[in-house]
């Protein structure tokens, strides 16, 4: 029954696209971009590499920022808040340009891939920070009290009581953020990182076959983002418990 319903929904979506493309009356010329396949493949793997590295770094950044915001040391708390507001309030495009041409330059970092990963982590980390903070704050006062009463330290309380419970709350928005991160990595093309999107843009510039370049692009990103969603869904099931 589930399969039938999913198939029905998929059919509906397909029909809309089929109609739209029919209407376009354009013949896709796959042969035009076929010689450039290697560029696509390399770009795709670069995107995987960038995203995977940024995924790990942004989770760490988000965790640090969320903990800083819960800290009893006020300067640290405000630093966390400033970071989140500054990053969330400005476009990623501007952040990439400033961090690459100004900050990285000042610190003598020349590797654009490194700067790319750090910028993406810096950006995504602010959103992850808010997701983790919301997860931590969703755990009731009584859990802190119980943990305190049995003699756990603050660090132990986070480790054994708060994080395991907060994880369940944070998984769905976290999956959404990871998916965004993969797609946001496309903006790194502006500092000359040849990832997946730049590969498509370059091929398009040479062949003038826009759809033939961008349709594989969409598919390539889907191949990366769908497993993230599926993976978090299984994790969610595993961490399921009633409160």
């Amino acid at each position: 029954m589930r399969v039938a319903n999913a198939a029905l929904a998929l059919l509906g979506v397909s029909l809309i696209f089929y109609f739209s493309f029919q209407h376009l009356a354009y013949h896709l010329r796959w042969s035009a971009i076929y010689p450039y396949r290697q560029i696509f493949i390399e770009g795709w793997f670069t995107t995987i590499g960038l995203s995977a590295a940024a995924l790990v770094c942004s989770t760490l950044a988000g965790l640090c920022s969320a903990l800083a915001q819960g800290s009893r040391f006020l300067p640290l708390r405000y630093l966390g808040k400033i970071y989140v507001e500054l990053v969330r309030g400005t476009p990623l495009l501007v952040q990439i340009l400033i961090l690459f041409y100004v900050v990285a330059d000042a610190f003598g970092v020349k590797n654009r891939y490194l700067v790319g990963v750090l910028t993406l982590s810096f950006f995504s980390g602010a959103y992850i920070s808010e997701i983790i903070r919301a997860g931590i704050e969703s755990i009731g006062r009584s859990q802190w009290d119980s943990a305190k009463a049995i003699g756990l330290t603050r660090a132990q309380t986070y480790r054994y009581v708060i994080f395991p419970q907060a994880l369940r709350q944070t998984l769905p928005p976290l999956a959404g953020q990871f998916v965004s991160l993969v797609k946001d990595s496309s903006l790194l093309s502006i500092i000359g990182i040849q990832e997946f999107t730049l590969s498509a843009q370059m091929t398009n510039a040479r062949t003038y076959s826009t759809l033939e370049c961008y349709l594989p692009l969409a598919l390539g990103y889907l191949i990366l983002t769908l497993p993230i969603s599926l993976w978090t869904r299984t994790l969610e099931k595993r961490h399921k418990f009633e409160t």
Partner: protein
Amino acid sequence: MNLRLRQIVKRFDGHLVLDHVSLSLDGVRSLVLVGPSGGGKSTLLRILGGLEHPDSGEVELNGQRLAFTEESLQQHRRSVGTVFQAFNLFPHLTALQNITLPLEKVHGRAPAQAEETARQLLARFQLESHAHKRPAELSGGQRQRIAIARAVSSKPKLLLLDEPTSALDPEMTAEVLDAILELRQEGLDFVLVTHEMGFARRVADQAAFLADGRIVEAGPAAQLFGAPATPQTRAFLDKVLKY
């Protein structure tokens, strides 16, 4: 236990919750605190449990004065057991894990040894068949008995119970009161905040009646419940025992 409270004052947001509370008891096995809601019973219990520190005043337990620094309060919390009204247990852990967590992480027992202790306690409270259930799969009475088992698992010098049955129906209340009675017969010292007057009278050596942040009357339980000396205590008991 020997307990001395000297001039304890506690305010929450400018509201006076404990107003110069003093009490001196020697060689008492069980103390029960009764009185109207908001009278300061729970706050006093939380101070005894090291979960709250008074604005001023002194607490001396068995000849040792409590130092209200985080470090020594933590030591103190590890040496007493505390059971709250509800939500004592960690919902992501099984009954068994709820008991072994503090034994392993706070009291440094080996996992096998902690599990052995936990299983013995569960068996004692007729809960062995529920060892691998999470709190959501257990009744309120079972949850409270597990909370009590956890609180006594590290052999505390004192057990503090804050209205442990007020969230339970009468049948479950009886289960929990049986467990407390059994612990008393084994010689465990405890301080109990309760609205179960019949039970309070039966288990307590000493009783104190708190209202408006003060100890209105304190003395042997039989005397306080049988022949209260102050009109305020008498009025309260008449009211709660009316139906």
